[in-house]
């Protein structure tokens, strides 16, 4: 759904590597002799489609649907090679928000969903989500939005209590109206409980702050590189780096094996949590931590982190049927059900404003009213512009923060190196 599965388990990689080979040999779709249309959907984590697919097959005899799940990075790499080779891609493919700008460059490999009546559905989505999936001034519809990642902050109640901080989510939210205040809370926390880390990783904080700005590394107007002049990027970096310099982070690779272990061992107290991250935290921390994690409002207001789109590669044999299915899966009624099943927040106002959705609570997270928290956050959301080379330069800044966390560089040195690398890569 999002940046969920980054390095989640290496075992998945093993499966994915194998799947890459197998899928590289197999074609997309294809027909059985009896006139059945076989459609495949390529996804990279639980999109909540399993039950919906069964239903769709029941109401559409003659259509058979198969899901192919691989790890997120593998998924996008594999898709790129399949598009390049002209075969092998699934009939419907999921593309993550951070990658869609890169694929937008190759739109001629995809079906323009406007030709399949997508334009009439435009108002289903939050305007920004719709825009992210389109190009050519909205005339070319590349992808239909599935979920989004509106932002909140998860914290561990028992660790907050031990540090003498408030534990109720309203009060916790009030502790950090801004990220500067969040850093102050970190200092208080560290002074009281020096053995525990305040936050899992500097790069998560950085990403969250950056996702609250209108422009990040690249200018909205002309896609030009502006990270060196956009002081918001430097500010976000400096704030996150200072947590690293003070050793208040766990220096963990987000969603990695170590991250899971650290969750299990309760070694950090807060982490940024877009809607899709709740499932990951629950899986990592395990049943014995039920009720110990809670969800509060994020510092600095709403932001969007992650979320995906469904696109239809041109090479498929049944693009018409595929487009119909993609439209059905992304319709508000279906997205609402997905939220209830998986917690993936819909990107359609009709779905996230639905009383059923807003009334949803998450028992594991101390019965936090997640529907309300994420719904509110979605309302105030101003998405960041993603440049074509966003996915190219992002790792440079993440690596830089990691170097600060491991004490190899100061924040200023790391920043300088990252900006220079990113500038060179963007000039190409």
């Amino acid at each position, binding site marked *: 759904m999002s940046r969920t599965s*980054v*390095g989640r*388990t*290496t*075992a998945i*990689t*093993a499966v994915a*590597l194998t799947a890459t080979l197998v899928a590289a040999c197999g074609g997309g779709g294809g027909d059985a002799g009896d006139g059945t249309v076989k459609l495949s959907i390529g996804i990279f984590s639980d999109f909540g489609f399993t039950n919906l697919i069964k239903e769709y097959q029941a109401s559409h005899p003659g259509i058979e649907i198969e899901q192919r799940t691989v*790890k*997120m*990075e*593998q998924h996008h*790499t594999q898709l*790129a*090679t399949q*598009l*390049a080779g002209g075969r092998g891609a699934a009939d419907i493919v999921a593309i993550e928000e951070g990658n869609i700008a*890169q*694929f937008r*460059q*190759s739109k001629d*490999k995809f079906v323009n969903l406007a030709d399949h009546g997508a334009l009439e559905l435009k108002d289903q989505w939050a305007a920004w989500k719709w825009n992210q999936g389109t190009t050519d001034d909205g005339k070319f519809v590349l992808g239909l939005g599935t979920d989004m990642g509106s932002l909140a902050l998860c914290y561990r109640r028992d660790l907050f209590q031990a540090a003498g901080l408030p534990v109720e989510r309203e009060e916790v939210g009030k502790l950090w109206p801004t990220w500067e205040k969040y850093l102050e809370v970190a200092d208080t926390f560290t002074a009281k409980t020096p053995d525990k880390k305040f936050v899992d990783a500097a790069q998560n904080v950085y990403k969250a702050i950056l996702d609250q700005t209108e422009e990040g590394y690249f200018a909205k107007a002309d896609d030009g590189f502006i990270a060196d002049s956009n002081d918001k990027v430097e500010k976000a970096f400096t704030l996150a780096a200072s947590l690293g310099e003070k050793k208040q982070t*766990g*220096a*963990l*690779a987000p969603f*990695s*094996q*170590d991250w899971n*272990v*650290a969750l299990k*061992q309760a*070694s950090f107290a807060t982490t940024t949590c877009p809607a899709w991250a709740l499932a990951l935290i629950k899986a990592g921390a395990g049943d014995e931590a039920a009720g110990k994690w809670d969800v509060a409002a994020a510092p600095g207001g709403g932001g969007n982190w992650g979320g995906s789109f469904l696109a239809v590669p041109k090479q498929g044999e049944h693009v018409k049927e595929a487009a119909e299915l993609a439209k059905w899966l992304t319709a508000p009624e279906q997205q609402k059900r997905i939220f209830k099943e998986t917690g993936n927040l819909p990107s359609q106002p009709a779905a996230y404003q639905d009383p059923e959705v807003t009334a949803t609570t998450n028992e594991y997270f101390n019965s936090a009213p997640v529907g309300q928290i994420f719904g509110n956050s979605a309302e105030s959301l101003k998405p960041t512009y993603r440049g074509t080379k966003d*996915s*190219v330069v992002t*790792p440079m800044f*993440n*690596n*830089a923060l*990691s*170097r600060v966390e*491991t004490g*190899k560089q100061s924040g200023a040195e790391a920043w300088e190196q990252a900006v220079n690398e990113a500038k060179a*890569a963007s000039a190409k």
Partner: protein
Amino acid sequence: MRLSWRDKLTRWDGKYTPYLIIAPFFLVFGVFGLYPLLYTAWVSLHDWQLIDGDQGFTGLANYAELLSDGNFWNALGNTVSLFLLSTVPQLFAALGLAALLDRGLRGRAFWRAGVLLPNVISVAAVALVFAQLYGRDFGIVNSLLGLVGVDPVDWRAETWASHLAISSMVMWRWVGYNALIYLAAMQSVPKDMYESAMLDGASRWRVFWSITVPSIRPTLLFTVIVSTIGGMQLFVEPQLFDPGGTATGTGGDDRQFQTLVMYLYEKGFRLFDAGYSSAIAWVLFLLILVVAMVNFAVTRRIASKG
């Protein structure tokens, strides 16, 4: 004299059948080996994007850029370092293991099959287990080091630590395999040579270095060449050791354990720069060729001495 029809067939058979029999190999090699190799060379001369294809001929520009690319030299250095760190101790360990297996052990078949097990297990599974062993906060290796009073090591962050950890993974996988090859060679060493040495009062150690090792020299050289080729192409172990995984593919936050193939993968499949990636592939191919030729020359010299 006129040849009979049957004679002609026999001659034809003798002349051409061997070629027919080996032809499938060359056919398959041509399709899956030579063609990709040449196509890669062609791609490397272009500005070639993975999805969108050819963006124009650029001649040797990719190669020129490669030579002044610090990240390339860094990856080359890491590859050589990882290769030396894993191959040298690996081959010595295999030699020792083979010598032990060569002696009359109880349950010989069990031990011999056992040493091959690590090689049979999927490399991804091995990497997963080792990644946990070398965990910074909760890894077993660090807790063992803690018992003897050594501070925990951040195995992924430090250059040397990460190289040692990855090398140990490679060794674990390949020591048994090489040991079995050595063992096979050792068993064909004539026993009477050992007997006469023993009669002359030579120690086991002396017998091993003066008789066993020189006798299996061609096998030693074979394993050196194969390990070299494998070592230069090291990819999965370090890639899966990287907590960022393929998301970054940089081999640590400072590229401290990025190998050449990882760099190739990063350029080609994360950044979609197929032209540059192909140039790396070709340089790597040439490097391996040079190393193999050096090995070959050394083999010939040593073989003729023997």
